[in-house]
């Protein structure tokens, strides 16, 4: 019995906590993706590059001597107009075609290619690692964990709760949900739909940028960081249901736990194929994902 307890404490608990900290990070990315898809029907292939942009901006600002906490607030604020302009100047140009799914996917894919190479041009191909603003470790359940990771989980949870509150409990959220459900009807009722679209896109992009700053001290900053991370976020969004906020949260926790715990039994290199395998199975048998999309039910 005590051996079982010990394995629970020293083998499973650390994996669960590590999985949770990755899970919170993935959920921040997945939230932006899923909100953008839910409202605009846009698969944002450049979402990972916006995450990287946030991380690079954060790193640059930190080098000017600003404190981490100011940077943490500043970067999302800078990302908002970037996202707004992207939606207005680029996405809107192909938005009103019948095949906007595929056209916007291709367009954001082009943006991802350009951004990634711009990062290489400005910052070089090597990885940077900003110093963690919270040093040291904290004891939890008899195990030591880096304090910054625990902080990350707490902040992530607050943000997720905040997004949920805004979308489901405020007038602004109601407007967004209404526009997602029926944009023509919302426009007739006086909702400035185009501005809501651009604003929502900007919000999703800002979330990605925030995730970039938060995770920079943990996973370091390099030009392809977005690409490596976005695959997981895509899997989460698809399993949870494209356009579903609840789905992104549940699937985000689920898939990162699958990844963390499966690596106890199989070689960790196979946990990625396992997660993608789950994604493919969901696409085959339940393409709408576990939960319905934003504004629908």
């Amino acid at each position, binding site marked *: 019995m005590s051996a079982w307890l010990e394995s629970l404490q020293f083998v499973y608990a650390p994996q669960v906590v590590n999985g949770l900290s990755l899970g919170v990070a993935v959920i921040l990315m997945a939230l932006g993706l899923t909100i953008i898809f839910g409202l605009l029907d846009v698969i944002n292939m450049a979402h990972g590059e916006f995450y990287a942009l946030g991380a690079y901006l954060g790193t640059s600002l930190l080098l000017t001597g600003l404190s981490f906490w100011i940077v943490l607030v500043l970067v999302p604020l800078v990302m908002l107009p970037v996202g707004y302009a992207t939606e207005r100047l680029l996405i809107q140009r192909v938005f009103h075609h019948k095949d906007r799914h595929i056209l916007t*996917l291709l367009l954001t894919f082009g*943006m991802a290619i*350009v951004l990634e*190479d711009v990062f290489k041009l400005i910052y070089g191909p090597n990885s940077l690692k900003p110093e963690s603003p919270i040093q040291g470790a904290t004891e939890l359940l008899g195990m030591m964990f880096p304090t910054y990771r625990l902080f990350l989980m707490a902040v992530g949870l607050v943000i997720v709760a905040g997004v949920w509150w805004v979308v489901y409990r405020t007038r602004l959220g109601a407007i967004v949900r209404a526009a997602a459900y029926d944009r023509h009807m919302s426009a007739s009722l006086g909702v400035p739909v185009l501005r809501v679209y651009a604003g929502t896109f900007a919000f999703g992009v800002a979330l990605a940028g925030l995730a970039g700053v938060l995770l920079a001290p943990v996973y370091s900053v390099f030009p392809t960081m977005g690409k490596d991370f976005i695959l997981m976020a*895509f*899997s989460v969004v698809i399993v949870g249901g494209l356009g579903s906020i609840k789905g992104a949260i549940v699937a985000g926790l689920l898939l990162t736990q699958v990844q963390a715990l499966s690596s106890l039994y199989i070689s960790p290199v196979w946990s990625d194929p396992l997660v*993608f395998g789950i994604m*493919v199975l969901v696409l085959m048998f339940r393409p709408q994902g576990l939960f319905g999309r934003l504004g629908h039910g």
Partner: protein
Amino acid sequence: MVDPTIPAPRRRAGLATAFVVLALLAALAAWWTGDTFYLRLATEALIFGGLAMAVDLLLGIAGLLSLGQALFFGFGAYLSGLLLRDAGLSFWSVLAIATVAGAAVGLVSGVIAIRARGVYFALIMFGLAQIAAKAVYNVQALGASDGLMGVPVVRIGVGPYSVSASDPLSFFLVVLVVIMLMYALLAYLLDTPFGRNMQALRANPLRLSFLGFDPWRYKLAAFVLAATIASVAGALYPMLRGFASPELLYFQTSGNAVITVVLGGVGTLIGALYGSVILFGLKSVVGTYTEHHLIVIGLLFMAAVIFFPSGLVGALRKKK
């Protein structure tokens, strides 16, 4: 006014002929000047053009955006590398096996992938290719992250003669023949009732089923064809470069094929080959000025999507 009842490939027979003539002229020029570098690059452009042709068959003809066509390209490349290195098979038997095996893998993944529609199809292909890429990357028997090394130079028997794949000019001509044969086969197929029904998939799949045809079958047929073409094109790659690497299966390879198709013109098939040559040419020209050629290519691609969306959309499945 374009006659919509005539399939695009027949309307573009002139473009296909021009492509072959230009390729032969380029080969002549290379022979004259004794160049090997650009000839090798042109051969690579043709091989990746074959992959793009497969993507165009799905996107431009059947209306399916594949974000994971590199899966079949990489499969063909690894299969060919293994057969050449460990079984010592001849060029033609490797191509024959790559055709049959590519079709078989296409059939299995097709049954999985075409359950999903539209953007979900794109994502399921993305996922499938990603699983395969991660698997290949981690399997020691396939060389893991280093890739499959040491593929021997193959001799290609043509009747009583034989040429070596290490001779740039001969191999360029062989690849040209293989790729153009696949193009000709597709162009012919699209002109048959079977091919017309395949094109009806993007025009109006509902009406296709009203006429008593099963859209699922035609979708699967297009998918298997595209997988086979990508596999054969992939099989040529290790013969050119002497290795197969996991990068061949990565999203970058699939994405590049999509870029090629959009730059070359969706739904034309021959546009994929032109697009590939343009893309390789662009990379090599811009590459002499800066290593950041992807910025230029990405911007061009975005411009193509923004400014020629009707060309693109017209070729995609119409959705009301």
